């Protein structure tokens, strides 16, 4: 068989794994791979971002909307270390990625060579798996293993570091897809006994509540979940990352959980007699004080990662399984039931929340622009059908509360890690992953400046994302905490921002600015309907607080409405 260069074998391996898009940034130690890529541009679309962090967040956005493995390239040393934040983000939010980094030639490893960093050591705690290839013979086998690991079980990021000599030396291309690894068991076998135990609890419960996590989206279990909820009549509440798995107008949907979630699902957690947690991990932003969480409830946990079971909350019945498979089994045996009275209790909570908070925020009489009002209008204008990418902070919580998602895989945000700077690059990746859908990035004035250079990527490739800056010239969430818990001491949270519109002009991106409420509707319509990338800088109230709020470390029952 004819030998090819290692770097070409890498590109061909990616093609074997159906990779059609790569986000990356070249440099010395990865040049052979980029040289091989040059000949395969008809098969692989490479997006040159302006920073490696941009590349990996773009790959995350791409993966989260498409369900495919996101791929990114970076060179050794600083190129590789710049990926770390994104890798940690993908790890905690279970996003399948394969990151390929160049490395100095193997004979220079450990010598502090130019642009050498021990990326295997550095990335170890934040990857699902990593491996350093030092010989071209390993390329095919390791890349196929990388994709298998990234996408199976609980997905996650894999980093493959490839020394320059392995890229240069020749190898026979013989690609076989990885089908199993004896030490890795990503397909748990469902325990029928547990399914029976769970269904007994489900059938007997009087106030059951389903908590929908991202696991539902990752296993494409949306339909099975709806069937389960409709059969049993059990209300559905969503975590931040579970948003959009259930349409917000479903009759059993009762809202969003957690620190800035809806009032009903938070307070009712402590009234429920059964919690059915599906593909979620009881993050502290969801549970608050765990000793005062779900105090009257038995717990059923459907979870693919066994290490998540009993990690935070002790379960009564744990089903270690893929969410979809477990729901299919449960749907076979659960009884028809309804819990309309119980759901009505949530609706009462909704009324209270509407009167105390929502009404004041979306029907503002004064001439001021509130974040909630902007997001509510966007939700209405897009009929809840756009892909919404959010950064981290007040705007993120407001968007999660006010955007009424109607389509699955539409909420892309940095949940577990809370990475400011995530949204702009993730949105361009999302648009490439779902080119036919509208993608709107909602970003604060702080977060956008962390990765603002990606406006150049958006401009160069004419990626039609809409960028909405909710601009209060403050690091709003930190300011809110300073107001509420630190005696109004606004320590380094106020910002003198650049003129975002001139910046957008500089990058050749159409833009507009809204400062008066009377212009808001017209400008939002133009923003939504424009065929191309568009940056809209909306100047909102300087000091707004996001409510409801479960103060950090307190019980979900102590959720504050004001």
């Amino acid at each position, binding site marked *: 068989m004819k030998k090819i260069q290692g770097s070409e074998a890498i590109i061909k391996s990616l093609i074997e794994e159906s990779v059609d898009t790569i986000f990356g940034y070249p440099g010395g130690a990865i040049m052979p791979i980029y040289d091989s890529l040059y000949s395969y541009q008809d098969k692989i679309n490479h997006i040159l971002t302006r920073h490696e962090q941009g590349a990996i967040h773009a790959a995350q956005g791409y993966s989260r909307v498409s369900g495919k493995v996101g791929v990114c390239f970076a060179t050794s040393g600083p190129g590789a270390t710049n990926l770390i934040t994104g890798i940690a983000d993908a790890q905690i939010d279970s996003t399948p990625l394969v990151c390929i980094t160049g490395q100095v030639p193997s004979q220079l490893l450990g010598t502090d060579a130019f642009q050498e960093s021990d990326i295997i050591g550095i990335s170890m*705690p934040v990857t699902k798996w990593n491996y350093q290839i030092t010989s071209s013979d390993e390329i095919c086998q390791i890349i196929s293993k990388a994709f298998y690991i990234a996408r*199976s079980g609980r997905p996650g990021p894999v980093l493959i570091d490839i020394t320059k000599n392995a890229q240069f030396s020749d190898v026979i291309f013989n690609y076989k897809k990885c089908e199993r690894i*004896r*030490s890795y068991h990503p397909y748990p076998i469902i325990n029928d006994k547990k399914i029976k135990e769970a269904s007994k609890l489900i059938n007997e419960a009087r106030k059951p509540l389903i908590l929908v996590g991202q696991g539902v989206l990752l296993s494409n279990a949306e339909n099975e979940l709806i069937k389960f909820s409709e059969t049993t009549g059990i209300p559905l509440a969503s975590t931040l990352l579970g948003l959009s798995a259930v349409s917000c107008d479903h009759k059993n949907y009762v809202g969003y959980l957690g620190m800035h979630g809806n009032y009903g699902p938070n307070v009712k957690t402590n009234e429920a007699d059964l919690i059915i947690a599906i593909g979620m991990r009881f993050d502290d932003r969801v549970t608050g004080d765990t000793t*005062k969480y*779900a105090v*009257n409830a038995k717990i059923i946990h459907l979870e693919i990662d066994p290490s998540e079971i009993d990690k*935070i909350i002790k379960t009564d019945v744990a089903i270690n399984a893929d969410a979809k498979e477990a729901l299919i089994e449960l749907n076979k045996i659960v009884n028809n039931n309804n819990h309309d009275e119980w759901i009505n209790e949530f609706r009462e909570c909704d009324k209270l929340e509407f009167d105390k908070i929502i009404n004041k925020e979306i029907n503002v009489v004064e001439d001021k622009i509130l974040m909630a009002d902007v997001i509510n209008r966007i939700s209405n204008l897009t009929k809840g059908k756009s892909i919404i990418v959010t950064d981290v902070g007040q705007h993120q919580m407001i968007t999660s509360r006010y955007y009424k998602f109607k389509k699955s895989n539409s909420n892309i945000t940095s949940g577990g890690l809370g990475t400011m700077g995530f949204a702009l690059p993730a949105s361009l990746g999302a648009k490439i992953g779902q080119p036919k859908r509208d993608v709107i990035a909602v970003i604060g004035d702080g977060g956008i400046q962390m990765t603002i250079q990606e406006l150049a990527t958006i401009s160069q490739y004419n990626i039609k994302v809409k960028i909405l800056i909710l601009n209060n010239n403050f690091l709003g969430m930190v300011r809110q905490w300073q107001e509420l818990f630190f005696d109004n001491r606004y320590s380094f949270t106020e910002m003198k921002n650049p003129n975002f519109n001139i910046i957008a002009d500089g990058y050749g991106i159409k833009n507009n600015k809204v400062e008066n409420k009377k212009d808001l509707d017209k400008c939002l319509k133009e923003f939504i309907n424009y065929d191309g990338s568009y940056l809209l800088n909306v100047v909102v109230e300087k000091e707004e607080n996001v409510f409801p709020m479960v103060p950090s470390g307190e019980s979900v029952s102590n959720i504050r409405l004001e």
Partner: protein
Amino acid sequence: MKKRGIYQIKDSDKKVKEYTLSVLTEDKAGLLNHITIIFNRRKLNINSLNVSTTEVKGVSRFTIVVSSTKEKIIKVVNHINKLIDVLAAFLYEEDEIYYQEIALYKLSTKIFLKGDLVEKIIIRKYGAKILKIEEDHIIIQKTGTKVGTQKLYDELKKFGEILEFARSGRVALSKKKRKTVNFIKKLEKTKSNKLNI
């Protein structure tokens, strides 16, 4: 009101005890680091660690001794089990395993001239053996528990200076009837790691 958070654990699980982890892994560079950072992250200090190849080619065994609460160590084991290259991690309390440690003592040859040291103490009382006799030093070897090797150390010290002393990590086997080869064969055949089952 029922409490169920992670901080509401049984009193017996809150007690710090010595646990032994036996971890079968693929023989892969860097895995040691991967395992130890799981302890570091929780600020758990490892008492002893032994890594060696097993009777099965390509498979290594880590034996890790650590003082921890049960609640914490179970999460550590779950986390180790999650590592891709780990075949299986087992958690044992002291009464569930057979275990030994080995200690080497380097003494000056001179102190052997003092009485019945060799016969009475080293051999009869402690079951230790003499590994090597050189002109100026002698090496003694004792296998046992940490308490036993420490006792011999203390006793030898009464006779004079101990030039050097080294103690190994623990090696342990479970009291269960399990054959490593068969266990690994089973892992290779199970459905839970097969694509498209």
